[in-house]
């Protein structure tokens, strides 16, 4: 091993500084939002809140916790996410399994049908008209059905199924298992890792989504929590108005936004450290074949 040159050691030092800055720039906004959520409204307005809460209090959390619309929308988010993920998993798994059969007649066409939609889509207006005319508005199906298959996820799953050894399936076929039986009892138990990854991909994307609901839901009690937050940001409606009875309550606009951001992001941030590696490996798998 050659001793690193002086200029390389200088580079390593600079590199360390740059990457530390990257970490700080990424994390600082989170720290600031959290400290805002615990701060007094007056201190926020005065621009005093940076890294630590100023005028520490839990009033804002209490106000948000008491807002029944917040909880109802949070419940909607859970409900929409569970239903949409279930639908998406069933359709994606079935199609990915079919596409993974290399000898299937017409497979190329079936793949093409899916891949073409990655590059050309109908666009907002025809989709909006379609969902409206199908009468899906104001129901969970307006969120679940139009987003049922993500072609990227489909290709990841297909690549995984293709990598499974074919001998097991052939043996099961000889033992008289039907195609459905093979998929349910042989293939899926072998694919727990990729199924878990796909469930995560879909869960996070439905949990985070807001635009479908914003577009297709007409009443605020049908909205997911992301739209609740969006409305707070847009200053349109929300807890700020709901609690406008007392002078203290009408003062809490900025910290209410911070509290809602914290509460909406919290589930994702809590599971993030444990699931991050599944995302990384899933994307790699997709990149190799996609």
């Amino acid at each position, binding site marked *: 091993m050659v001793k690193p040159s002086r200029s390389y050691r200088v580079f390593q030092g600079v590199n360390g500084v740059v990457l530390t800055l990257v*970490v700080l720039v990424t994390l600082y906004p989170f720290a600031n939002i959290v400290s805002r959520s615990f701060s007094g409204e007056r201190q926020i307005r005065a621009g005093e809140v940076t890294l630590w809460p100023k005028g520490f209090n839990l009033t804002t959390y209490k106000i948000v916790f008491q807002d029944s619309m917040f909880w109802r929308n949070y419940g909607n988010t859970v409900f929409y996410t569970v239903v949409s993920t279930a639908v998406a998993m069933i359709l994606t798994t079935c199609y990915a399994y079919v596409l993974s059969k290399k000898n299937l007649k017409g497979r190329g066409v079936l793949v093409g049908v899916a891949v073409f939609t990655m590059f050309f889509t109908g666009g907002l207006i*025809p989709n909006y008209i379609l969902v409206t005319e199908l009468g899906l508005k104001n129901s969970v199906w307006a969120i679940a059905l139009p987003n049922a298959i993500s072609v990227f996820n489909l290709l990841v799953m297909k690549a995984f199924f293709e990598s499974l050894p074919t001998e097991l399936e052939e043996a099961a076929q000889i033992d008289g298992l039907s195609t459905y039986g093979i998929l349910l009892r042989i293939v899926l138990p072998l694919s727990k890792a990729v199924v878990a990854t796909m469930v995560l991909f879909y869960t996070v994307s439905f949990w985070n989504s807001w635009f479908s609901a914003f577009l297709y839901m007409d009443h605020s009690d049908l909205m997911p929590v992301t739209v609740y937050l969006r409305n*707070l940001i847009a200053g349109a409606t929300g807890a700020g108005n709901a609690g406008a009875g007392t002078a203290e309550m009408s003062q809490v606009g900025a910290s209410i936004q911070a509290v809602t951001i914290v509460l909406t992001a919290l589930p994702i941030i809590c599971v993030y450290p444990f699931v991050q590696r599944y995302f990384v490996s899933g994307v790699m798998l997709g990149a190799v074949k996609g």
Partner: protein
Amino acid sequence: MSTSTTSVPPPGTQGPPPTKAPPRRGRRATRTGRRRALRRDWQLYSLAVLPLLFFLVFRYLPMIGNVIAFRRFEPGGSIFGEEWVGLRYVEMFLSDPTFWQVFRNTLWLGGLTLVFCFPIPIVLALLLNEVRRRALKRFVQSVSYLPHFLSIVIVAGITLQMLATDGPVNHALGWFGHDPIRFIQEPEWFRTVYVGSEIWQTAGWGTILYLAALTTIDEDLYEAARIDGANRWQQIWHVTLPGIRPTMITLLILNIGTFMAVGFEKVLLLYNPLTYPTADVISTYVYRAGVESNSFSYAAAIGLFEAIIGLVLITSANTLSRRTVGTSLW
């Protein structure tokens, strides 16, 4: 040997027995082949029915639904419109000054996103690649991926709070004796705000494919370069960058493909009527014209125009790349 069931060939005649002329693969043959495949694999095909229905209804019907760009549409009527009106809506948007404004804004935002958000992950990946301490590298990666997993509403909310007149950015400006800037209300700041928030959200996650490509570069190449007297910079220039070039080109093509679509949801969350002069893009204009003002045909015409440009961009980028450097998506 698999000839046990057929008649054993007499000794001396080796190889397979002469076969009959291969069956003519006419239309008849493929049809029976198709029927046989259907009979053998019908269970597999049945699994594809629901997904195909999904693609048909929710992907291909809307594509066809774009004909309302050339037809009069009535809410509650057919999703394909009532009667042909030719290019009336196309002429309408081509003579609409707002359209040209949002067209310019789209090019600006798309261009700036490409110039900043495409190269930054490459640089970040190269820097991460030079980190020798495993734990440190992992930590930086984990932290920088985080914003990617948050809802775009949260990202927009954080952006607005950071840039509020009482937010930390203006606080920092105060140290230099600068008056607070109303980033969110001033049109001249929108592009900076948008691109900045986009970098914050995507730069870390964008490194992931480059880091994967970097690990596949053969160590021997670096060894050889060192023996030839290449210093660190020359190694990066002559070994590392060529090693990740296919990844760079693939992602560049994909980026060019989404050029016209810009971050529709993010713009929708970050803009307001005060910043329309720089922030309003084609997709947000389509949204307002169609969903908010009910000019469905007019909005669909603009949307179709955008989608076609997107398709042309990605196809030409792909062809150009295949001809010049031999990397392509398809």
